[in-house]
């Protein structure tokens, strides 16, 4: 029985030969128990990938473990950890989706613009993705707390129609502030075509999300300034 299920597990991982695959497909077709088990493999896999942040630490431990046993392996494990920690995800903005005007056109769509980005998205933290999608879709300035005026970069002024949108005439910057941190301990940023999304955990436990066409080189100064004042 275990050998059968081991084969099912290998089939799930795409590790069977063509003949073995044909065989297991027939077995699955006539055995509901095997179909259920196969589906549960998928549920476990989804769960693992969604909680990949927690598993990251395990990979980092793995690196230490290998360091002791085989120094050559360290680089491989480090590369794996780097893949997990990479959270630069490319998004495609979709102005038509909500039929919004230009002013509020910085809407995030989870339609991803490249295969690589899609894969990265799938490995990224689901809660963070949901948070960003929620903010970009909501298009309501009143769901955000008021941001401190001294956080606003020099040269930017508020849009009278949206208290959380700022512009210097060339670049736009939106802010969203609320009481949650999503387990983020340091600034994370995501690229979205020519736009960027910054998740900035504040010392008081709130999360500031800033998004707009402000590259990290400029945003870095803003973030430093926010940390000095918060």
């Amino acid at each position: 029985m275990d050998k059968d299920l081991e084969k099912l597990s290998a089939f799930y991982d795409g590790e069977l030969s063509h003949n073995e695959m044909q065989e297991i497909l027939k077995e699955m077709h006539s055995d509901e128990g095997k179909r259920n088990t196969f589906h549960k493999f998928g549920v476990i896999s989804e769960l693992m990938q969604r909680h990949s942040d927690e598993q990251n630490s395990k990979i980092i431990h793995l690196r230490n473990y290998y360091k002791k046993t085989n120094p050559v392996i360290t680089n491989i494990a480090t590369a794996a950890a780097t893949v997990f920690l990479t959270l630069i995800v490319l998004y495609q903005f979709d102005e038509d989706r909500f039929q919004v005007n230009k002013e509020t056109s910085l809407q995030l769509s989870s339609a991803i613009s490249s295969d690589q980005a899609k894969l990265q998205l799938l490995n990224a933290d689901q809660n963070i993705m949901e948070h960003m999608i929620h903010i970009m879709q909501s298009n309501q300035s009143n769901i955000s707390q008021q941001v401190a005026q001294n956080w606003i970069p020099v040269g930017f002024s508020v849009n009278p129609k949206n208290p959380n949108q700022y512009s210097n005439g060339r670049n736009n910057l939106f802010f969203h502030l609320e009481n949650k941190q999503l387990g983020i301990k340091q600034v994370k940023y995501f690229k979205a075509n020519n736009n960027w999304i910054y998740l900035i955990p504040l010392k008081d436990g709130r999360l500031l999300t800033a998004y707009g066409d402000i590259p990290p080189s400029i945003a870095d100064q803003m973030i430093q300034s926010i940390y000095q004042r918060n």
Partner: protein
Amino acid sequence: MGISKGDEMLIAEIKAGNEMAFEAMVLKYRPKLMSVLIGYTKSKDLAEELCQKTFIRVWQKINTFKGESSLFTWVYRIGINLAKNEFASSFSKNSKMTDQLNQDQHDVPEYRSPETELIAAESENKIIQFIQNLDADTKTAFTLREIDGRTYDEIAKIIDCPIGTVRSRIFRARKLILEFINQENIING
């Protein structure tokens, strides 16, 4: 990242009209797709509906899949596009669903297992905790497979053991997790 060898074989079977292969593909990717769609729509019912439509579309369009991306990336794209259409239609009185799917063209297997897509948060934590407490050898092989997406051959090279050992360790992890899930009564069915 292109298509894996396993998915390549599965796709070839589906293209040849093998419904058992299609069924296996649905079983394999449905949990991940449901997770993405629930995250996107914030509605389990809508996600269910879109998931069903996605797999119908996958069946209809399978011959257009060129293997330039992974199979799930392709499925994901179809699902998200359908979700976008759904959003667009709800935001416009005059809009209409652009995806007129004939559901009779292919009967997508329906599994009475939506609960498996929505394991309660505390149960998820229990499972993750259980995985973290697996013995080092089992956990290492399983994590390299599930999180890092390594093939058995790659894992065998990394941990310096035969492929058969990798295969049995990965299965052992799944078996132990399933036993834990059953014992804790986390997933029914």
